[in-house]
């Protein structure tokens, strides 16, 4: 049975239809890559899944762990196990990184009827996770993403994912703006989190990231629809030929 099932999804942003009938199924532990030209609706898909306001579903359904995802608020979806690593992580002045992680972690515990984590234990846990991503204590003491470089922001997203241990991780262009060292570090971080009960939807414009994180399936999104699906060799083909094939208005 699929962990996530998207059927005939139509979504509008600001009254404009961006997603025009998406069908996608993710099994447990599977890694799917969604590739496509800029403006094709990749981030829109990620926001619709995460439950961002202003991204309205006009038609279709999304089922996650047998639940109608569209019935859930953004924070409920997160607590159900959906994690979106943002393409552009926002800076949150004044909210200390460590506090932010603890609030998020405890929110999930409360949601599932558990009591909140012991502060010291949690601190140790976060530190160990941060270490593998080469993130210093000092970064965790600072306000979330404030003054972070592009690469640091992306690493911070992966740290949050490592701490919250989602069942479905959506990585929106986590590779963009990273130099090769940062890309390796982030990919290693992601690969460590691969497991049979964690599925991933990896959104990317370039094939580069997929050298490090090998997907089970690759989909091409253009003009608001999945135009083609295949194995990881599809990514290589796109790398060679570009998106020219999908650039004209879709039929």
């Amino acid at each position: 049975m699929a962990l996530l099932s998207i059927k005939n999804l139509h979504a509008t942003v600001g009254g404009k239809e961006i997603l025009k009938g998406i069908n996608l199924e993710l099994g447990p532990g599977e890694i799917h890559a969604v590739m496509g030209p800029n403006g094709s609706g990749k981030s829109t898909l990620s926001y619709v899944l995460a439950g961002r306001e202003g991204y309205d579903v006009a038609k279709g359904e999304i089922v996650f762990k047998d639940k109608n995802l569209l019935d859930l608020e953004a924070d409920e979806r997160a607590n159900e196990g959906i994690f979106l690593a943002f393409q552009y992580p926002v800076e949150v002045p004044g909210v200390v990184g460590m506090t932010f992680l603890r609030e998020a972690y405890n929110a999930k515990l409360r949601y599932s009827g558990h009591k909140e984590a012991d502060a010291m234990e949690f601190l140790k846990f976060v530190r160990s996770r941060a270490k593998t991503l080469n993130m210093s204590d000092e970064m965790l003491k600072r306000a979330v993403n404030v003054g972070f470089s592009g690469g640091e922001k992306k690493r911070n997203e992966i740290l949050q994912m490592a701490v919250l241990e989602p069942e479905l991780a959506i990585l929106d262009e986590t590779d963009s703006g990273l130099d090769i060292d940062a890309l390796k570090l982030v990919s290693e971080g992601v690969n460590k989190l691969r497991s049979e009960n964690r599925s991933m939807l990896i959104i990317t414009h370039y094939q580069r990231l997929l050298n490090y994180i090998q997907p089970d399936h690759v989909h091409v999104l253009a003009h608001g629809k999945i135009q083609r699906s295949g194995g990881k060799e599809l990514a290589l083909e796109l790398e060679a030929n570009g998106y020219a094939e999908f650039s004209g208005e879709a039929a």
Partner: protein
Amino acid sequence: MNIQQSSKLPFEELIAESFEGVTGDWHHELCKRGLQNYVDVGWPGAKNESWKYTNLNKLGSHSFSIAKDYSTAIPEDMIIPLDCPRLVLVNGVFNSELSDQKLLPEGIALTPLANLSDYQKTFFDDLRLGKEIKYALPLASLNTAMFSDALVLELAEGTELSSPIHIISIGSGSQITFAPRIVVNVGKGAKLDVIESHVGASSGMYFSNSVVQFNLQDGAKVGHYKLQNESNESFHISLTKVLIKERAFYDNFTISLGGILSRNEIQAHITGSGAECCVNGTYLGAGSQHIDNTTLIEHIAEGSCSREVFKGVLGDRARGVFQGKILVHPDAQKTDGYQMNRAMLLSDQAEINSKPELEIYADDVRCSHGATVGELEEEHIFYLRARGIDRERARRMLIGAYISDAIDEIRNTGIRSSIQGVAENWLKHNLYEKK
């Protein structure tokens, strides 16, 4: 010409009544001068630039009587919670029973109004910068005309106090007015932290019109932290007048969250080079509260610096006023001045008037100022929600973070966390759990 020839000014009759309680020729003369200044300038109106955004009609037309009762209990849950010696004024009059003058450390002296030396009397000289109308301080003149007691504290040269002194002004009663007067003179190289809490003993409505003076002699280091937590329907008008001499350091923070209408006016005059002055604060308003912060930082001597950060959160129909002026004299070369006012409006009907002003007569200076007004950002809320934090909790985290960013300016860490607690408590009771 005084436009109000025929009718008397607000409080004018009360001044005559308060004169009866004044003892001593010097105090009597001082009150008369205060009255004369007050009558000369008149009640602040729309024409008075400095009071443009804060309308005192309601205060002026209300009938008050002079406070006669000077005993009450300290409302412990309203003041900044800190364990240190307290000096308490009830309705503007020193209350020795509630005060810990016996615990005052060596080097600090408290002199009753009746026993002031000639030197100490000079602290009460006219507070105006000049005769021009723009320098008029009508409410401070009213304070001079009406104050019945004063708290005069002096810290001897070179004395460094490790524990703060807490000055508490309590308004007790209903429909009354009083005029707290506080002078703190800090000797050369001396060091002191003063906390000033303004609170109401009950929910009674009153008008507190205070004047607080700080004189920092050469090399003095003073932290001055004020909480304005007057009872809900009350009026709080205050002038804080600070003289900062050579290499002295003044760190000020005001948190305003009480009263129906309040004005926290600060005038800091840097007369010595190498001095540093921080005037910071936060203001929290809900319901129909009106909160005014008006500041003047005057750089008179060469090579001094000032820093000013105010941050406010306004909900419901609350209204904020921020007027901040940095004035740099021709001789004050190498001045470094920074000023910022930020306000967060949580409702469509909340409002802020912000008027930053630089007046610079020297050419080699570095001064900047700015103001921002914003709401909670949906982008921030969504980021927190995408991590499982619900909307209300996200909102609280972001508002709390906004305010603590201002409170972090306070240098004394113990006082900083106490004030943080006061702010959180206010947010909880006035914004979060009031629906």
